[in-house]
């Protein structure tokens, strides 16, 4: 056995995050670690790599007991890790990030040229075009994630740990990552893989271990394991209608009844001018590859990137959307894709975070009463199944997926009339996933209009009344009614376009 964990226990004030967990990792296997948001997956990893100090338990690597006191020590033992919530340091160059801590030196000084060469080599297997001399922060989240992976792979002499590494990658990048993982497996490394994408888990893993509420509930070979059984392990009960595909009646609103109109909005270099009309209670899906202009469309609509052309208006006339503040004032909401950095105040409590945006809109002169805040917090903790010991816990101490739910809750509390959701279910477990889709249905019944951006087509099919396809920074197609099917969407995304080329994605 390459790595063993025996009766690992870790408590935080008010929570027992891990309760006597056992875990084995063989050389040459990909071992998936699954569980709901807040089950304790990331905590297990951090105890293993010395980022947290465990309360109890033994670790062995190659049969010898280990007890890393710091992540540096774990790195030196040959354990490379991609942590869930960090994408390295944006203020250092790509090369510095990749070689950090082991930069080649000459006479005690960092040898810049050798460092860059080394960095380029490390990235060579991932098919990305990156200038390693530039600051990491100037690149997209996807590239940052690939850089983090490349770094961890190089550090992993024996064990590679990937905590939700694919959250911002598109399918091509995921395929590339899996090729790398497979070749490492062949070299005899042990790989721990955490993900909420069950398809990916089935594709790459050899075994799975499931955690629930800090306890290990099962370890199984993936071959012969049924998907539904796996989900049952994770949730502790059966999932009520996991796939809602096709059950939703795709009723686009009657064009004459659409109340919110965008005409010719666009911004050069980001997204070509497009028209969009939205009806009350309508869900519009936005499909397309990563980098096709999906997020950019949303940012233009919400005033994050001011429009250069076009107008927006509703029944009462024109709406100004020069910046997010005006968008919020117009009753818009936007839950961004990168919720790690956007939109969370880690030191404030769950209650305060949920009340924050609502309070800002009401103005600070009219405070929301404590009772009202508590009511809001309790409502959304219950509704979105936010796993927290209580509403006063600092959001920064929640698990990654639960932090995302808090961001959603904050916007929902404002009850916007037009709500833009960018990848609402990334990093959220299967149970909560279904819950969020149900919630979308519920709020739209009350009249909220929603624009959902998602790479998971099943999800779009499940909730959207209409789907707009974006390609090469252009809105290229609109699918309605019976056309809203996975196949049709895929075909529309891939449809050969006279001048489209692969690289644009």
């Amino acid at each position, binding site marked *: 056995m390459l790595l063993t964990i025996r009766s690992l226990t870790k408590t935080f004030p008010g929570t027992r995050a891990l309760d006597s967990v056992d875990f084995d990792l063989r050389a040459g296997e990909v071992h998936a670690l699954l569980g709901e948001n807040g089950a304790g997956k990331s905590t297990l990893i951090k105890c293993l790599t010395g*980022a947290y100090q465990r309360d109890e338990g033994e670790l062995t690597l190659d049969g010898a007991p280990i007890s890393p006191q*710091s*992540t*540096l020590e774990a*790195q030196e033992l040959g354990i490379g*890790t991609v*942590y869930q919530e*960090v994408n*390295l*340091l*944006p*203020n*250092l160059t790509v090369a*510095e990030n990749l070689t*950090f*801590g082991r*930069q080649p*030196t000459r006479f*005690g*000084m*960092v040898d*810049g040229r050798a460092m860059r060469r080394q960095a380029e080599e490390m990235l060579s297997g991932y098919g990305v075009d990156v200038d390693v001399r*530039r*600051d990491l*922060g*100037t*690149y997209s989240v996807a590239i940052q994630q690939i850089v983090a992976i490349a770094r961890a792979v190089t550090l992993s002499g024996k064990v590679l740990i990937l905590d939700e590494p694919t959250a911002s990658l598109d399918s091509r990048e995921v395929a590339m990552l899996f090729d790398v993982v497979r070749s490492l497996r062949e070299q005899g490394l042990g790989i721990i893989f955490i993900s909420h994408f069950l398809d990916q888990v089935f594709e790459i893993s050899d075994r799975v271990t499931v955690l629930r509420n800090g306890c290990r509930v099962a370890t199984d070979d993936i071959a012969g394991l049924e998907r539904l059984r796996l989900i049952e392990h994770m949730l502790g009960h059966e999932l009520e209608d996991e796939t809602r595909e096709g059950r939703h009646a795709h009723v686009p609103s009657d064009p004459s009844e659409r109340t919110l109109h965008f005409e010719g909005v666009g911004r050069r*270099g*980001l997204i070509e001018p497009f028209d969009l009309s939205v009806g009350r209670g309508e869900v519009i899906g936005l499909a397309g590859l990563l980098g096709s202009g999906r997020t*950019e469309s949303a*940012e233009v609509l919400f005033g*994050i*990137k001011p429009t250069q052309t076009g107008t927006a208006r509703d029944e009462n006339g024109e709406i100004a959307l020069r910046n997010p503040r005006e968008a919020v004032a117009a009753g818009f909401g936007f839950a961004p894709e990168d919720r790690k950095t956007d939109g969370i105040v880690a030191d404030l409590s769950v209650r305060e975070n949920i009340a924050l945006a609502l309070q800002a809109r009401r103005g600070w002169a009219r405070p929301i009463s404590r009772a009202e805040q508590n009511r809001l917090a309790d409502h959304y903790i219950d509704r979105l199944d936010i796993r927290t010991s209580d509403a006063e816990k600092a959001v920064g101490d929640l698990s990654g997926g639960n932090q995302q739910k808090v961001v959603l809750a904050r916007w929902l509390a404002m009850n916007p009339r037009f709500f833009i959701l960018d990848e609402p279910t990334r990093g959220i477990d299967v149970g909560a996933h279904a819950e969020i889709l149900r919630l979308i249905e519920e709020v739209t019944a009350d009249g909220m209009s929603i624009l959902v951006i998602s790479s998971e087509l099943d999800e779009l099919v499940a909730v959207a009344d209409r789907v707009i396809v974006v390609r090469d920074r252009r809105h290229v197609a609109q699918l309605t009614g019976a056309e809203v099917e996975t196949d049709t969407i895929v075909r529309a995304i891939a449809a050969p376009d006279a001048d489209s080329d692969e690289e644009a994605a």
Partner: protein
Amino acid sequence: MTSRTLPLFATIAIFLIAYLVCYLQFPAMLSTRVIGNLLTDNAYLGIVAVGMTVVILSGGIDLSVGSVIAFSGVFIAVMLRDTGLHPLVVFALLLAVTTAFGAFMGGLIHVLAMPPFIVTLAGMFLARGAGYMLSVESVPIQHPFYEVLKDAYYLMPGKGRLTLLGVAMLLSVAGGMILAHRTRFGTRVFAMGGGAQTAQLMGVPVGLTTVQIYAFSGFMAGLSGVAFSIYTASGYPLAMVGTELNAIAAVVIGGTILTGGAGYVFGTLIGVLTMGLIQTYIVFDGSLSSWWTKIVIGALLLMFILLQKGLLRLGTARAAA
């Protein structure tokens, strides 16, 4: 030019323009004499500002340095008066003391997880008090070796004097540039400025690095104290009040971001020289009162903070695109 280097170039441009303005009004200001004096007169500030740059790059602050410089002057003067030790031995002793003092503050910051502001503020009072304990009055230094140090210079063409102090400052800056930009330690400093938690997950020994950073600042403050005692040939516990703020101002004018993680040691040198230039101008003019220095420095600071804010916004906007 990236948004990273822009503040540095802005600093250099401002310095050159300011110099040009001075030159047009007083052509005599473009002489090796003035340049030599500029270096000598600001040597102590330049040396301590190098240490401050490293601290600020790491996302910290060190308020104790002014007091440490004053303490150094008194320590040296009293030791030379009361013992027969050679000044070089006294210097070595002093540097050991100030480095240990800095390391101690760094340790406290890490172990108690206290804001550097508070810990070094306490350090500031402590060092000032220690200076008083050694002597309440100004203590003159009369040692033949001091005469040698003071008169050591290289005569530049045009009769300007490149003094030992000026050279010491330039060497400190060069050393600081190598340390911050060309060593693994330097990368760790930038990493901490970029985010202590991330840095820790990437394998930065945060505790050790914090101790090293403040030890370095303590060392540079000690060195600056030596320079200052050579410059004034005395030690006085009330000297150098507010120098830490001048050092911080030089660092910020030099283009380093006050929240850490981005900046250049070379910029700090330009920041120091810019501040020195304003003073020189006032001396040349003769009719201006010296508080103009403060006003101009205040305006410059404000300008740079606004520039940085603007760049930061530009940077995030571009990253989001």
